[in-house]
């Protein structure tokens, strides 16, 4: 046989490719010996965030019922994932959230009211993405996944130490963009972590109608990406698994696909009627595995939950809730002229004309209103 170039060689068998497969059981730390090895400061910090997160979900849900938000997709039941995701990011890293991931954005340090801008019904995305290194909340499913890859790739080309973390739902893994993003990430070896919160439903569609795979984490190997399965209600496990993935990415080890098994306790959004597609028993089952309770139990069992810690966590949560009530109680007052301000860097003649027309209408309206006084 002749000597050939690498490209032509029959594919090298990758001896250790099974390391790309997830374990048969999701990674769990709570309830195992490993739990006690984790720094107690970290554990208490995660606890505070869980308490805050739960309060956030409850408060925003309540405000939505009062008509203060246009829509709220809650993460009640998924707080361990949200907390874990925010906690593992370095200041220079970027978070790519979906519509559901407001909590992780808030825990990243973005002002909650700014975070909720779109969901209040305002026309823009709120916080400045470059300041916080948080992409805008993304609604078209999985479309932000290639963005996370592109940004990580760009940073790597520039020699910057940036890892991107893309949050995505179980349903969204069926979209073509999810597939294309994973493949680009693998080929580019971009420092990107894909974090699937498998909450078992895409609106009403259960996981069994979404995929026939042993797990979503099993998709990793098809791209040459390690797939990891983790108990998404075990905040210590989520934190540990994501930390490892972030570190591997940072060290040049490329992307990781993490699937967290969790559950959405609330309906898809306030507009959804979840009783149409799931049983109370099912919800009750997951409520028994509540991520906040699970960690609380661990803290109690290990004597880490002194009354001071508990009180401070609760106080911080109440403070945030009060602030939300106050500030979301005030109507946003967007300027109609904003319709035209940012469509292009430089306004087209056509838009200029349209803006003038609207301005004239508004002037006439306010004259009319003024005349009526």
């Amino acid at each position, binding site marked *: 046989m002749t000597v050939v170039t690498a490209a032509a060689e029959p594919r090298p068998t990758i001896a250790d490719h099974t390391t790309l497969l997830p374990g048969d059981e999701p990674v769990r730390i709570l309830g195992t010996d490993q739990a006690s090895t984790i720094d107690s400061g970290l554990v208490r910090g995660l606890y505070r965030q869980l308490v805050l997160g739960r309060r956030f979900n409850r408060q925003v849900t309540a405000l939505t019922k009062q008509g203060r938000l246009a829509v709220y997709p809650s993460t009640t039941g998924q707080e361990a994932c949200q907390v874990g995701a925010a906690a593992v990011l370095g200041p220079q890293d970027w978070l790519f959230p979906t519509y559901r991931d407001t909590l992780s954005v808030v825990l990243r340090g973005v002002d909650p009211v700014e975070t909720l801008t779109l969901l209040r019904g305002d026309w823009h995305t709120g916080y400045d993405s470059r300041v916080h290194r948080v992409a805008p909340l993304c609604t078209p499913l999985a479309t932000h996944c290639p963005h996370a890859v592109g940004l990580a790739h760009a940073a790597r080309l520039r020699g910057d130490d940036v890892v991107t973390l893309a949050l995505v739902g179980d349903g969204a893994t069926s979209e073509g963009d999810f597939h294309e993003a994973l493949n680009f990430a693998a080929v580019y070896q971009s420092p990107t972590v894909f974090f699937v919160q498998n909450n078992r439903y895409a609106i*009403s569609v259960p996981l069994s109608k979404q995929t026939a795979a042993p797990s979503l984490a099993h998709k990793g190997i098809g791209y040459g990406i390690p797939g990891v399965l983790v108990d998404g209600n075990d905040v210590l496990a989520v934190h540990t698994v994501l930390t490892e993935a972030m570190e591997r990415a940072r060290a040049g080890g490329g992307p990781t696909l993490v699937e967290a098994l969790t559950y959405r306790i609330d309906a898809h959004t306030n507009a959804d009627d979840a009783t*149409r597609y799931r049983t109370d028993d099912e919800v009750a089952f997951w409520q028994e595995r509540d991520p906040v309770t699970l960690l609380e139990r661990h803290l109690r069992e290990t004597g880490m939950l002194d009354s001071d810690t508990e009180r401070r966590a609760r106080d911080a949560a109440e403070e945030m809730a009060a602030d939300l009530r106050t500030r979301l109680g005030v109507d946003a007052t967007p300027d109609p002229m904003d319709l035209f301000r940012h469509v292009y860097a430089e306004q087209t003649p056509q838009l200029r004309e349209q803006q003038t027309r609207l301005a004239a209408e508004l002037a006439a309206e306010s004259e009319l209103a003024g005349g009526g006084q």
Partner: protein
Amino acid sequence: MSGSTTMARALNTALRDAMRADPTVHVFGEDVGQLGGVFRITDGLAAEFGEDRCADTPLAEAGILGTAVGMAMYGLRPVVEMQFDAFAYPAFEQLVDHVAKMRNRTRGNLPMPITIRVPYGGGIGGVEHHSDSSEAYYVHTPGLHVVSSATVADAYGLLRQSIASDDPVIFLEPKRLYWTREDWAPQAPVEPIGRAVVRRSGTSVVLVTYGQTVPVCMEAAALAQADGRDVSVIDLRSLVPFDEETVYAAVRRAGRAVVVHEASGFAGVGAEIAARISENCFHHLEAPVLRVTGFDVPYPPPMLERHHLPGTDRVLDAIERLQWADDIERAWHAVSA
């Protein structure tokens, strides 16, 4: 609200009746099964016809439309739901490259009797990506039919016709009108796709519109009447095919026309309508054909949407700008200058 039936219910009834009448009709999409769709248009179909006939799919719009193509190749008659207007975009390649072209390129051997239901338009307080008016993309694509209903009766009739059509139909459901009520009893549709209807007949100006903005134009027409303008309103119902005769006849009589839709104006459907009227009624026009449309900006979510959407005031204003009586002189000055 008076009336016995909502448009949503009429659409649901149309699907049920079509499925009863023809076992090759299959409904599928995201959340259309157990949940009955986020707007409940498919409510009860899975229960009546089983999961094989009304199925939840994995969450992938290209996959939904792509499998529909395969099912149509085998002789089925798929009716798919795109959950919201903007969520039909992932299926664009399947739509343009296959659904629209398959009959033509196979010389009729593989027709594509697929109905694609797209709840479209704004005004329901939806956040980003839930209020697009995407009809221009579809009407420009040869091989597709594009229809939209504005009344409860038409919702039923047009959907039945769309499902019965041997060609692909984009069925635009005006989501703002889902809860519009009318006294109505289901009855087999008689008119084929492609006929506009004169909703209101008048002699001095014609409003040409479809779907979401039909009620806006009807209201504007009623108000204009008070000002002595006798206004026609044409509900196109079908954008492709386009009922030129009905439109031209009315415009030639009135001499003035305004085209109204929610989508952005630039290269929107209104451009085609205005260009056609201008060309074919040239010597009958007393004034330029005007358009009242959404601005050329991304759809602004709820807090600002009322400024974007064409309302009665803008339609009335356009009517007033049609160079009536006193204006005319000024205009002729401009020409002779």
